[in-house]
């Protein structure tokens, strides 16, 4: 009767096989791989305290949602990984969260678009080597029928009108705010200010003002569904055009300038940030002709015009544009 014996073999061997499989998978994932992410890529963290086998170093950046939602990073990521021979990890976060990650040293560089917050960040010593590498504009979009009648106005005027109309009849006129301390949200606050309104008042003034707490793309979807007005950057707007039912209503205004900056985390302040050289490479690379050319054409095929504008070549001429050295001088 071989039942007992065979059972014993099974009982011992199956767990062993499973364990071997798992160990095999883990080790396979840890083998150094210079190629961009493939299947089962499970390399553990950079070659310092923890890893099983040292893998390719990992360079982490936090990026704003508007850059992410347009898919630009999907395009740029493999390029940078090849160039710098690192793994580029992109964490999707609003400007507020990105800055927090930066302060904690959990990322090595930030790509954001909130000049005031960035200035504070750098003044506090967390960030260094800030450069700008792209720009685009905001616009105010809204329901095709334009119930508040803002078409053609300046941004401040439009906002004031929306405010009055929204308070008067919130069922007809609504505004979707990012409400998440993102770059877009900061810009929105600036426009309210320029319109002569205190933001604290706007926030509490009625059900017409909706704080979504989501990324740019999702907020556009929300605006589309609710027939609301929204401040959006043009690139995300174009990328979502097919999915949403809002029309661009106000497209011109100084306040609409939106510049994308990249900042490295300062290793002097954050002892755990060790990727400064890679960060510098990254910053310079964003300013390089290769990337600037890509930015110049990204989205043209699909949307008719590029989603972002390169700074190189003096493309930005309006007031508020970064100074030449901010987008051309390489960092060391």
């Amino acid at each position, binding site marked *: *009767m071989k*039942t*007992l*014996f065979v*059972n*014993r073999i099974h009982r011992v061997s199956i767990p062993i096989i499973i364990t071997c499989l798992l160990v095999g998978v883990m080790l396979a994932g840890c083998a150094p791989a210079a190629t961009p992410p493939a299947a089962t890529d499970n390399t553990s963290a950079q070659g310092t305290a923890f890893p099983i086998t040292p893998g390719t170093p990992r360079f982490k950046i936090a990026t704003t949602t508007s850059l992410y939602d347009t898919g630009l990073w999907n395009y740029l990521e493999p390029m940078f990984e090849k160039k710098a021979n690192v793994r580029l990890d992109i964490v999707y976060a609003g400007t507020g969260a990105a800055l927090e990650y930066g302060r904690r040293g959990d990322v090595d560089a930030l790509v954001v678009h909130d000049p005031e917050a960035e200035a504070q960040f750098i003044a506090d010593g967390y960030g260094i080597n800030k450069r700008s590498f792209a720009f685009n504009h905001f616009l105010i979009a809204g329901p095709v029928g334009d119930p508040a009648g803002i078409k053609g106005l300046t941004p401040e005027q439009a906002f004031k009108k929306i405010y009055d109309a929204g308070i008067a009849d919130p069922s007809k006129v609504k505004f979707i705010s990012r409400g998440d301390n993102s770059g877009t949200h900061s810009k929105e606050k600036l426009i309210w200010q320029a319109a002569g309104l205190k933001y604290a008042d706007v926030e509490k003034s009625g059900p017409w003002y909706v704080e979504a707490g989501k990324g740019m793309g999702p907020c556009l979807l929300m605006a589309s569904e609710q027939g609301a007005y929204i401040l959006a950057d043009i690139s995300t707007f174009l990328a979502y055009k097919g999915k949403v039912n809002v029309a661009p209503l106000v497209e011109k205004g100084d306040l609409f300038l939106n510049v994308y900056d990249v900042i490295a985390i300062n290793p002097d302040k954050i002892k755990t940030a060790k990727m400064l050289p890679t960060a510098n490479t990254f910053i310079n690379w964003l300013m390089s002709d290769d990337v600037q050319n890509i930015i110049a054409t990204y989205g043209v095929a699909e949307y008719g015009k590029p989603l972002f504008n390169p700074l190189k070549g003096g493309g930005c001429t309006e007031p508020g544009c970064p100074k030449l050295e901010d987008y051309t001088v390489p960092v060391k």
Partner: protein
Amino acid sequence: MAILQTVDLEQRAGAAVLLNKVNLSVEKGEIFAVIGPTGAGKTTLLRLINLLDHPSAGDIYFDGDKITDPSCNAIQVRRRMAMVFQKPAVFNSTVYENVAYPLKIRGRHGKTDRSTVSGLLDTIGLGGYARRKAKTLSGGEAQRVALARAVVIKPDLLLLDEPTANLDPGTVKMIERLVMEFNWDSGMTVIMSTHDMQQAQRVAHRVGVLMNGQLVQVGRPHDIFYSPDNARIAGFVGVHNLLKGNIKRSESGIAVVDVNGKDIQAVSDLPSGSAVEIYIGPEDVVLSKLQSDGSARNNLRCTIRSLSSNGPLCTVTADCGFPLEVLVTDRSAVEMELRPGKEMYASFKAAAVRVLPSMQR
């Protein structure tokens, strides 16, 4: 040679005394039955012997070693014993694996071991059941498996705790037969607890009566049944015609006992005035139409109350001033034309009447 001995064994649970100074001695190779009513302490006693519980006081000696000593290796001791519990307990695996379990935990997986298990399955009548899930067995089948599991390692001592309680008569018989066979074939000592005196009579070499935690009598089944030490034991072992009375007078070893106003002569040295309980074996009473003048000292006039046939025998219940059970053959009952209401004479010798001092029940 005593393979198992308990010395002043005591077990308490809180204020309750479960075993009270039990001194038991079991000979190697015998089947020893511990009988007693429910709650007498039988299970407690067996569990202590198997070292599943610790005694509050006293010692147990197994094959000369003091196994209640803290330095003693309980696992090694238990490996020389095996126990079958009242409720059939099987593991949730196949019948084969159940029976093979004691071998498995001793690291024995050899070919001979495997054939031992198969052979044992045949012996207990479950030959084709090896792959069956043990949980699907009936109570009787499961208990047989438990028994096989117990004997597969040929223990020196087999403990059985009311193994046939709640089982059908066919299985009861089979298990009794198996136990006796195992004992006969391999000489393994068996200590079996039961509340059934008949079972003890069928199976055991010696019997110990456990009542209220005390071992009150030990002897051959015959001795217990026919010479119980006291009325309580007598009541338990199920003697018939247990009657209360008083000794009116006593001389030269013959006492006259007053039972319900009737005089009964019995053999006893107890002094007159003693409150006693007597019992008379139903098979020792002779019924006749006429008052007999044979050697029997007791001759009572009785009225038959009821008759009940058991195969070739007939139990007659009569009113002789007190209830008396008489055993006659069916044929005699027919010949004497016994029927309820008929008047007969019942006679029995003084020696057939056992006298025990009355006790607090």
